[in-house]
Structures are given as structure tokens and as C-alpha cells.
């Protein structure tokens, strides 16, 4: 009897559960997900994350679009202007993202991220780059610093060690040139790699305070220290420190030259090693010959050598993003998944708290230290400012590189664009 009752009860329970489940079955949702890691291994790493998430959430379909960096930037711009942003897309935060947020094209996810304390698991600094007026619009998975990646062997062969000052860098370049080695690789056709040089020089010479003043319109980009930054860059160009034809080269060319030992160094962000690896046949890059050093101090500059110019990578939410897009990001940033991403060929500096011990590679450790101990942190200029000003900065730098603009003219271009943005 008891058995029978139990049986009936259990059957009833199963039925209830099944009926209860029935109506609750989730509706199919599609999330559009855009990233720009076109290298095969990187693509596979993102795909793996997406596949795992979809296996756990069968009602969600994540559609990935991968575009190469330059095409990506163009495409996202048009998508935005059509008022139709992807649900989840690669963003560098900052002024460009703010402009989207201002126009109501991004989804404010502050509340959703607070739920369950998720936002507390991510470093406050990086998250701030993806926030605007106190609201969060995206999630960074990577936040690092730009610095000089150099070929240790070439340096040792020519009796060079890490540069502490700008003059050492200049002397080092002369020495390398004399030895028939291209000192620095630069892909200036893409413009943003060259702007790293100007950016760091501005951070070292003008310092954080002057930059913030100019940003707040209390100072001007035509002030002496900014002009001086262009003068120093011009010095490097006139020296012939960059490879032949660098104005027509792309960032991929730059990474390829460095990785294949055709140039002694490049100024680049934390992704440099992994991109370099992809540029060599054995996918090992320079291996143990790769070194990292902070951008040297400039004699008499207001900035400190611990000040950092850099930025991160993350994903922003389009205004029509469904909750599942947020779920996917939370899934991605959960320690287990995040570790898988970290162990993939994509190299980055983690933004999730309590993961610093993951970083074992000495170079990446140096980047992570520089980032976390930065006295002043300046986001890439081309992202920190609205697109029209960012574009003007990139053009000004290229004008210096091509020798068509004087330092004063270059500074004037930036200030003019900034004035028009009021």
C-alpha cells in the first residue's frame, strides 16, 4: 500500500515537474556578437566560448561576426548611424563609446551587473573605462599598458640594455642603424600605431595634469609640452628609426617585422606577443628573446616613468541587446571560463579580481604591474576622445611622420578639432 502511494506520488511529482516545466520553456533568442580577432587561433578561442554557452543554453543562438580591425571600425560606425548596433561588440570604451551612449545606442547594464555582485568581481579601474556618467555599458576582459617590445638578442648583440631615458633610446636607435638593423617597426598606414608614440611622449612630457587640463578646456593642445611631444617624435622620424616605407605599412606588417627579426622593437599594447606569434611560421614569435620595457622617461618632462598610456579590450552592449547577451558575458567572465580564454592563444591582462597569479610570463607580468601601479593612466587618445577629435590626432601624427606638418601645425589641428567639438 505504502509502495503504491509512493509510486502514485512520485508519478504525480514527475508529471507536475514536467507540466511545470512545459510553459516555462524559454523562447529562442539570437544574440549578435562582433569581435575583431581574425587570426585563426583567436577565432577558435571565441568560438569555443560561444559553443559552450550555447550547449548550456540551447534556446540562445549567438551569431558571431568577425571583421578585421579597420573594417570593423568602419562597419560599427555605420551600424551605429543606422541606429542598429550589434548586441555585443568589441569596444575600447572611452569617448567613442560615450558618444554611442549619449545617443542612446547602448544598453545600460549597471543594474544587471550588480545582481549577484558580478560587477564587484571586475577591477574598478577597467570597469570605469566602460562606464559613462555613472552607468556601465560594457565589460572589459583585458586592460593593460602600451610599452616597448624588443628583441633581447639584438639588444645584447649591440651592447644595449633597457632604455631609461629618451636620449638613451635615440642613442640606441643610432647604434642599431649603424649596425644595419631597423631600430623600430611601425605600421603607420593604420595610423593608430604611430599615435602610441605621440601619446606616450605627451604623457611623459606634458604629464597627466596638463592632459586633463587640455581635456577640460582649461589648457590647450597647442601648449608647449604637446608641441614638444611632436618635436621629439619628429626627431625619431628624421633619424630614420622606422623601417623603410613605414608610412605605407600596416600594423600586421609591423608585428611581422618584429617577430621575424627584421626590426629591433615596436611600441605596442599587451596583445603584441600573441599577434607576433601568429606572424611567424612556427607560431612562437621571438620566444624567449622577446623583452618588454616601459616607455623611457623624457628629460625635464612633467610625467613620471610609472605613468601609463594604454587601454583595454571589452565588449559593449547594443541598445537592443537581450538579457542573454549579459548572461553570456557573465559566463565568459566566470573564473572557469575566463581561465580557458586566458589559456588560449589570445594574450591579455585579466581584469577579473584575484586572477593576478595567472600571469606567469615575465613580460606579461611587467605589463600587469605597470597597469596596476600606474600613477596616471591615459586611455588611447583615439578612443578617449570623440571620433572627430581622435581622427584629427591620428592625422596630426601622420603629418609629422610624413614630414608634411610642423609640430606647431600638428598641435593646431588637434586643438581646432577639439574646439569644434564644443
Amino acid at each position, binding site marked *: 500500500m505504502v509502495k503504491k502511494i509512493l509510486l502514485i506520488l512520485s508519478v504525480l511529482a514527475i508529471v507536475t515537474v514536467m507540466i511545470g516545466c512545459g510553459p516555462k520553456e524559454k523562447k529562442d533568442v539570437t544574440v549578435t556578437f562582433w569581435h575583431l580577432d581574425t587570426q585563426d587561433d583567436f577565432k577558435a578561442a571565441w568560438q569555443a566560448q560561444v559553443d559552450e554557452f550555447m550547449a548550456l543554453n540551447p534556446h540562445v543562438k549567438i551569431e558571431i561576426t568577425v571583421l578585421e580591425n579597420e573594417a570593423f*571600425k*568602419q562597419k560599427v*560606425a*555605420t551600424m*551605429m*548611424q543606422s*541606429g542598429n548596433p550589434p548586441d555585443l561588440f568589441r569596444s575600447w570604451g572611452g569617448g567613442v563609446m560615450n*558618444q*554611442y551612449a*549619449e*545617443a*542612446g*545606442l547602448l544598453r545600460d547594464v549597471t543594474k544587471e551587473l550588480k545582481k549577484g555582485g558580478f560587477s564587484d568581481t571586475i577591477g574598478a579601474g577597467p570597469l570605469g573605462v566602460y562606464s559613462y556618467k555613472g552607468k556601465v555599458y560594457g565589460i572589459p576582459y583585458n586592460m593593460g599598458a602600451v610599452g616597448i617590445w624588443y628583441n633581447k638578442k639584438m639588444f645584447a648583440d649591440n651592447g644595449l640594455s633597457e632604455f631609461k631615458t629618451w636620449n638613451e633610446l635615440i642613442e640606441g636607435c643610432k647604434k642599431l642603424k649603424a649596425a644595419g638593423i631597423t631600430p623600430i617597426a611601425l605600421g*603607420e*598606414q593604420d*595610423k593608430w600605431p604611430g599615435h602610441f608614440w605621440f601619446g606616450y611622449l605627451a604623457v611623459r612630457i606634458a604629464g597627466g595634469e596638463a592632459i586633463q587640463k587640455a581635456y577640460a578646456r582649461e589648457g590647450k593642445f597647442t601648449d608647449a609640452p604637446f608641441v614638444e611631444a611632436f618635436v621629439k617624435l619628429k626627431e625619431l622620424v628624421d633619424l630614420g628609426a622606422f*623601417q*623603410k*616605407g*613605414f*608610412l*605605407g*605599412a600596416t600594423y600586421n*606588417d609591423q608585428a611581422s*617585422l618584429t617577430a621575424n627579426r*627584421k626590426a629591433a622593437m615596436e611600441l605596442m599594447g599587451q596583445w603584441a606577443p600573441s599577434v607576433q606569434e601568429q606572424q611567424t611560421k612556427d607560431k612562437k614569435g621571438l620566444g624567449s628573446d622577446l623583452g618588454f620595457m616601459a616607455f623611457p622617461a623624457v628629460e625635464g618632462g612633467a610625467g613620471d616613468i610609472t605613468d601609463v598610456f594604454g587601454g583595454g579590450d571589452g565588449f559593449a552592449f547594443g541598445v537592443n541587446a537581450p538579457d542573454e547577451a549579459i548572461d553570456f558575458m557573465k559566463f565568459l567572465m566566470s573564473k572557469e571560463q575566463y581561465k580557458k580564454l586566458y589559456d588560449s592563444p589570445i594574450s591579455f591582462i585579466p581584469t577579473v579580481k584575484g586572477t593576478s597569479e595567472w600571469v606567469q610570463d615575465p613580460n606579461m607580468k611587467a605589463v600587469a604591474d605597470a597597469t596596476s601601479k600606474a600613477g596616471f593612466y591615459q586611455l588611447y587618445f583615439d578612443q578617449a576622445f*570623440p*571620433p*572627430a577629435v581622435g*581622427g584629427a590626432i591620428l*592625422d596630426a601624427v*601622420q*603629418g609629422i*611622420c*610624413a*614630414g*608634411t*606638418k610642423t609640430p606647431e601645425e600638428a598641435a593646431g589641428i588637434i586643438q581646432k578639432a577639439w574646439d569644434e567639438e564644443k
Partner: protein
Amino acid sequence: MGLQKSSNMKTSKFKEYWQNPRHKQAIIVATAFLTLPLIVYTVFVILPVFQAAYFSLYKWNGLGHLTNFKGVENFVKILTDPIFGMAIKNNFKIVVLSLLFQIPLSLIIALTIARRFKGAVFFRTIFFLPYILSEVIAGTIWSFIYNPQIGIQNTVLSDWIPWLANFQFLGSQDTVFASIFVVLIWKYFGLHMVILIAGLQGIPVELEEAAFIDGVNKWKLNWYIILPLLRPTIMLSLFFSMVGSFQTFDIVWAMGRGDPANGAETMVTYMYKFGFQRFQLGYGSAVAIIIFLITISVSVLYQKLTAEKEL
């Protein structure tokens, strides 16, 4: 009152016209046949152009509503921007240089192979071949040829031709335009050749034979008889290179996006960069309108020039 009268007259006239079954049929058929083409054309060509004209009067980042009316300010800014000046100059340089180099080259080849020339088809086939490639493919191929690390600079040619070793190709503001122009010639001289051959074939052979019998030598024949007769075709070739030049985008984009330092900027790359990429959609639309006005002026000028001569 007068207005009403005239409209009354119009209606009655129309009624009269409509009464005729032939006319009625013509109108019905014309309406049936023209509706679809007109809709497609109006929706996808006319409407957007008018909208561009409207946007051009605003400062607009393309994201929100159009609120910041600026009148002609965008136009003033564009026309005083030295970079746009460089872009216009480059566009006209393409026209002038094709007149000086491309069309003469095509003309010489056309005159050589147009008539009873063994292997004419073979040469024509080869010379025309680059034309069928897309500009993106052509541009990428030539980026490879010009690439300092693996291109022609990196070969024995550099030992033989000293200036080649230091030539910057796409890597310098001074040389990028010339380098791209070479590609334009390479890609389009075959088209002009073929157009000119077609023109030549319209000139009666007897004319030439008669001249030959009279002992006129070939140069004189070409110069005094063939060329004047070929003038309309040459003008047409020129017109094509003009209108084509004003639209140049793909090839420049594939070969360094108009840089370094705007050395190869054209009006359309300028529009794309300063309009789309910098989120200045009003400004970009104003550039578009200027391109449009320049194209129209050139076409009108062309019409005038050709019409006068044909009379």
C-alpha cells in the same frame, strides 16, 4: 480665377486625349510598364540624393535627431579645408594626366592595331584584361608589387635602377599619387583603346585607301584625317575618365586609404573619412553634394563642347 480656368482647360484637353482609344491604350501601357522602373529608381536613387542635400545643412553625428541647423557652414568649411583642396586637385590631376598619358597611349595602340594587323585580337585581349579585374583585386596586387619587403624594390631591379631602391611608392606623400596613377593607367588604358578602336572602325576604310593612293604618309593621314574624325570618340574617352575620376574610391582605398598625409586623397575618400569615419554625417553629405555639383558642371561643359562641334 485665371488659374482655375487654365486647369479646367487642361482637364478638358486631357479628357479629349483620353477619349481616343489609341491614346488611352498608350497611357495604360506606359503606366503599367513604367511604374516599377520608376519606383525602383526613385526610391533608391532620387530620394537618397535629396536626403543627402537636406542632411548637408546640419551638423549631425548621424546618431540622434537633426537639430543643429548650420546652413551653408559645412560647405564653407569644406571649401576652405586644404585637405579637400588636395583631394580636388588629385581628382583633376587624374583627368589631366590621363589626357596627357593614358589617352595618347591608348590612341597609339589603337591606331597601330585597329586595321589589318596580325595578332590584333591577341594584343587587344591582353591589353583589355586588367580592366575586367575589380579595383580591389587590382589594388591589392599592386600593393604587393610596391611592398618594400617583398615587392619589386626587393629584387635585382633595385641594383640596376638606383632610384628604385629609394623610391617610396605608397610610403610617402610625394610618391603615393604617382604610384596609384600608374595602376589606374594599367587598369584602364585597355578600355580606352577598345573605345578608340570602335571609333576607328566607324571611319570608312576607303578614306584611308584613297589617301594612301594619293601618297599621303601614315603620320600625316593619322594627324590630319583620322584624328579630327575621331574627335568625338576621344572626347568620350575623356568624359569617361573624368566621371570615373570623380568617383575613384575602391582602388585608392585598397592601396593605403588615400594616405600617407592625404597624398592620394580623392573627393570620395575624403567624404568617407571625414563624413563616415569621424561621425560628421552632415559634413559628409555636404561633400557628397559638392561632388555631385562638380560632376554636373563637367557634364554640362562636355555637352556644350561636343554639341558645338557636331553642328
